[in-house]
Structures are given as C-alpha cells and as structure tokens.
C-alpha cells in the first residue's frame, strides 16, 4: 500500500464514517431479524403463543438439544452438504465450460447460447421444477414415453432423485456463473494473452497460469454465491419430490425446517434450524475466505 493513505488513516478514522450509511441500512435489515430469530430459538413459541394469548416461556437451549439429538437432523444435514457440494461443483463446471465456449463461439451461436441460458435463468424455480416434474412423471411423462419405460419412477431411489433435482438446480443457476465468468474473461486484456502466447505457453498453461489467477476474484464471488444458493435450495426439492421424497429420503435442511417447524407451527424449532443454517453458512464462507487468504489472495 502506498504511504499517503496510511498517513490519512492514522489521522482521521474516516472509514468508520464512510461505513456508517451502510451500517444504518444493514443493522436494521439484517441484525434485527437475526436477533428475533435468535430470540425465538430459545423460546417455546408455537401457534398458541402467537395468537392464543398463551405466554411464551423461555426454553433455553431445549430446541437446540432436541435438534442435535435427532438422528434425522444429522442425516438431513449430511445429505444437504453432499447435495449442495455436488450442485456447486456441477454449476461451476458447466458455467465455466460454457463461458469458455462463449468466447470461442461465433456471433450467432453465442447469441443463441446466451438466450438459452438466460431463458433457464429467467424461469422461476417453481415453473421450472413443475415442468421437469411433468416431463419425468411416472405414468404419463414424456421422458418415460420416449425411453419406453412407462411406470418407472425417477424419484423412487434416493440418489437418482437427488441427481435429477440437482440437474434442475444447476440448470437454473449455471447462467449466472457463465455470464459472470464470460464477462471476466472478456475483461482480460488481449495483450496479456498475446504475451503468454509469445512466451510459448500452451492453451492449458495459459488457462492455468494466466486466466485462472486473473479470474480469481470473480471465482470467489461465484463460489460463495453458489454455496449459499445451493445450501438453501427449497423450491426444486419441495416441488419435484413432493415435499421431501418417498419416506422423506430427499429432505434438505430448508425443506426439513419447513416440514418440522413452520408447517406444524413450531416456530421456535424452525428458528433454531435457521440459526444453525446461518452459522454453518458463515463457517463455510469463513473457512473458504481464510483458505484464500492463506494462499496469498487479498480480498
């Protein structure tokens, strides 16, 4: 960092005042709901408390101990992590590959690919999931008709069902990755690439040693976004597996929270799940940023 800025920082704590407007917006909009969520999670608060005039009592950590002692919670947590991890990897792979393809494609095919991707992006999760569910219907779906497998239930086994729902999640979320990375690649000066070429770097070496490091800040954002989105998937699972799959085999945390807590008006248990989800996401993000800083990346 150049000297003058350091001097300025020592004299006046200007950055604090610069942060204040953002804090004024973020504290009420983020802090207050989080505070309410945290408070709710240590109460015993259901519909009788919300509307029946029954006083809310302090439950301490009972909601948390109930959750952490429930084997189903751990199963759901584990499969949520695996599912979200798979979705993130697939989204990045598909989005990244197509971004590279976009830079190589001709004008017309690029336009076509862009429109197709934007269509998938623009489709509301609800609509997209419902359409795919119709296509995959056991008795009258187009997919079964074409394959001649009428009567085959695509959602019958746990992991095939997760793969299919995951594909729809990726279908919804790869365009964001693709367009962000495409913009990133386009922003790399041609001179840098030419220099690499002149130095005799192969395409692979250019990608690994020039493109990737330059795209890194974008990749960080894309990864964090994808982790957060995919960890919180609700609509696709809820719609395509009709509320969590056969015998609840395809539950992910968000759907589990809805089913266990909000649908049955146990608001404090739902709040406890929400707090745990937030903590897990913060931890994952923090670990990721820490790993980046270790490897020498400024953020």
């Amino acid at each position, binding site marked *: 960092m150049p000297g003058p800025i350091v001097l300025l920082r020592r004299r006046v*704590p200007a950055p604090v005042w610069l*942060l204040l407007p953002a804090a004024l917006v973020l504290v009420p909009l983020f802090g*207050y709901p989080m505070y309410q969520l945290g408070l709710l999670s240590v109460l015993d608060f259901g*519909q009788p408390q919300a*509307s029946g005039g029954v006083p809310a009592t302090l439950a301490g950590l009972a909601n948390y101990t109930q959750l952490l002692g429930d084997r189903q919670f751990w199963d759901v947590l584990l499969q949520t992590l695996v599912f979200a991890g798979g979705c993130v990897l697939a989204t990045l792979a598909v989005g990244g590959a197509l971004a590279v393809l976009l830079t190589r494609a001709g004008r017309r095919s690029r336009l076509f690919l862009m429109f197709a991707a934007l269509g998938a992006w623009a489709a509301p999760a609800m609509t997209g999931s419902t359409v795919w569910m119709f296509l995959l219907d056991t008795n009258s779906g187009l997919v079964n008709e074409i394959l001649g497998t009428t009567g085959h239930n695509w959602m019958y086994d746990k992991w095939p069902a997760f793969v299919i729902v995951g594909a729809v999640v990726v279908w919804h979320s790869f365009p964001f990755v693709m367009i962000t990375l495409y913009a990133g690649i386009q922003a790399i000066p041609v001179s840098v690439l030419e220099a690499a070429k002149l130095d005799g770097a192969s395409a692979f070496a250019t990608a690994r040693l020039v493109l990737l490091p330059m795209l890194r800040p974008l990749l960080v954002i894309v990864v964090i976004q994808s982790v957060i989105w995919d960890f919180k998937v609700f609509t696709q699972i809820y719609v395509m597996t*009709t509320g969590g799959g*056969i*015998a609840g085999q395809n539950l992910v945390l968000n759907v589990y929270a809805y089913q266990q807590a909000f649908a*049955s*008006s146990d608001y404090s248990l739902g709040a406890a799940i929400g707090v745990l989800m937030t903590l897990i996401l913060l931890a994952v993000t923090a670990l990721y940023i820490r790993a980046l800083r270790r490897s020498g990346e400024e953020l």
Partner: protein
Amino acid sequence: MKLSRSVSRPLRRAALVALSGIVLAACAPGTASTTGTADKGSGTLKVWLYDEANRAPKEKVVAAAVADFKAAHPGSDVQVGYIPTDAGPRAEKMKGAFNDPASAPDVVEFGNTDLFGYVAAGGLADLTADLSGWAEGKDLPQDLRDTATVDGKAYGLPWWIAVRSLYYRTDVFTELGLTPPTSYDGLLDAAKKVRAGKPDLLGIAVGGKYTFGALPFVWANGGDLAAQQNGVYAATVNAAGAQAGVKAYTDLFADGICPAQRCADLTGGKTVEAFASGTAGMAILPNSSRSAVDAGAVKGKYAVVPLPGVAAGSIAPAFSGGNDLGIMKSSQHRSLAVDFLTTLGGKKHQLALFDAMGTLPTLASARAEVSARDPWLKPFTDTIAAGTKFVPKHPGWAKIDAQAVVPTMLQKVITGKADVGAATAEAATAMNAALGAK
C-alpha cells in the same frame, strides 16, 4: 478487515453501545393482540369457505343461504371468500387470520381434523350455548358432535361428512368374472386377478401418502394410531393390531397389484385421478369424489361397496371425514355470525349442498332423506352405520399431519427401507413427541 483495525478503541466502544441499545429496544416476538369478541348488530359479515374443485355449484348454494340470511337481517351484508384447500396454503391462511384479527373473517369452514389445532391456537369461539339453543341442533348425532368438541365445549358445527368406500369397475369385474370383495382376502385376490387379467390396470389404486386410505386397514385389524388414557394420548401405532393393519395395507403395493414404483408416492387425490381416468380396477374413495369420477373415463362403468374388513361380510371402520363451520374468536358480529352459521349449516342448505356436491348431510333427518332418495349412497351410509373412527382429538395431530409421520411410515415399509416393526416404532416415537408436547 484492515479498516476496522484502524478504528480507535473509544469509538468502537461507542458504536457497540449504540448497537446494543438498538437491539435491546427491540422486544419479544410479535404476538397477536387478543381482541375479544364483540357483537355488533349490523355490518358486513366475512365468511371463508373452502375453494373446492367444482366451486360453481357450491357458490350457488352459498348464494341462496346468503339471500335467506339477508332477508332475515336487513342492513347486513355477507362477503364470501374462498380459501385454498391444500394443507399448506390453507394453514398459512388460517394462521394469518389468527395472527391478525383485524383481517380475519367471522365465519370459517375447516376440515374436522384441523379443529384441535385451531382451538389450541385460540382462534375459534366457543359455540356450546349457541348450538344447544338451536332448534335444528337436536338433529345432530352425538358422534359427529364429538368430533367438534374439545374439553366439553363445542367449537364447530359439522357441516357435511365424507366417508370412504370401495369403488370398483363393473365392466372389468364382469369381464373377468369377479364379484365385489367382502373380506380383506377377497380384496387382495380380486386386485391380483384384475392386474393379471388386465396388465394395464392397477389392481387397486392405493397410495403411500394416502393416510385416510390406510387407516381403515389399521382399524379393521383392531389397531389405532393412538389411545387416550386419563386424558393423555399415547401412540399405539406399534401395537400388534396396528402393525397387522399396516402390513395389510402395504401388502397391496406388490408388483401384482399396485407396484411400489408407481404407487409409493401417490396421494389420495392421485388415486382419484387414477380411478377416474380408467387406470385402476378399484380405489378407496369418498362419496365426495363422485363428481370427479363421473367427469372421467369411467362414468357409468363403476359401482361402490363398503370397504371390507378382515372377516367375511364385515365392514372396515372408515375415517369420518368432513368439514365444520366455526366462528372466529375475534369476530365483531357474534350473533349475526351464529345466525349465518345456522342458516348455512341448517337442513335446507345441507340438502342443497348434497344436490350440488354429493357431500353427505350431518343432520340425521337430512341424511335419511337423501339416502332414501339416492340408492347410490347406500354403501356409504352402511359404512357410517357400521361405525366410523377419527384421528386423535389433539392439537398435536396437526403436527403429525404436517410432519408426514403416517406417510413416512407407510413409505418406509412399501419401499423396503424398514420392516413393519421398525417403521411403526419410529412413527410411534414421532407421534408421542407431537402428542406429548403442544
């Protein structure tokens, strides 16, 4: 990160104090103000009814009741709204009404299993005095009255009932030389023969998510979901009788009857579709599905018999489903609301509702009248006469329902993820948790 390190200590402290001030000022989670019931003599009465699949005929019946009510109460108006019938959306709607009395209706229709949760939520007004003072109320059988009673207080007027019986395809049965089953073994046998003779058809359409299709088998085997002792409910779904019932129902999900691949995730509604579209030889459907079935491909090609029990000639106890009318505690027009409730729930309009929708009247004389008029109803009235059963009358039922405890139990057995003993034991644990706590 680096920026914050440069902030001077006192300033940081000041910011923290300011922050915690904001946080502390915020109080506990919002609770609805408990507005008491008021009794304004005139005004607009708000009514919420279920938005059934065929709403037009229902609207006609309601319009007639509104006209009668307005004639008796000049200067009052009635505003009818229709709310979704699906469990999730309708629960959201009702919770919204409980939490915000200002926008809540005066009179509501609700499924009779929802009543206990609504009462615990403090949402419904006590109608004991109003109903006992109502002349037509004497006509309401005690067992139906009980389904809307909590701790000796009535919170709803049973408006119509629906029980499930066995629909079967007369054309298929004639072609294959089968007779309608009169015992569980007969049912199993007929279902196998239908699918063997007509591989395109399901022997019987059953669903892993069809709780009220499965319960008659549990009850027929002498089991139940839960039993009440000294006012406390405890799950009995893992007792021998219930286990036998669960086995009897899940045995129908065999490749030779209703293959698990196709039937494990069917809901009750999906079995109606399967039967109506002509892809099933039999199905366990309520009287209120008549219009849906008649609108399908099998119109005129089916008949109904009571769902057989275990012993030959016996009838499996049916779930006494149906909807109630109630009054919200927050209503500001209590007497008017009671008058409208007894008008719409009275004999005249119950009969009209039957003509429009095929829903069985709750008032005994009205039910006798329609049964005499329409022989189609006989299997259903026979089923009612043989005795019906109900889910635990406890606010915890809403939770058991929302958490899909029974479907999960059935699906685990159907897909072979657990045997009957393990699946019912797990369900019993979940039920006890819901029935013990609130």
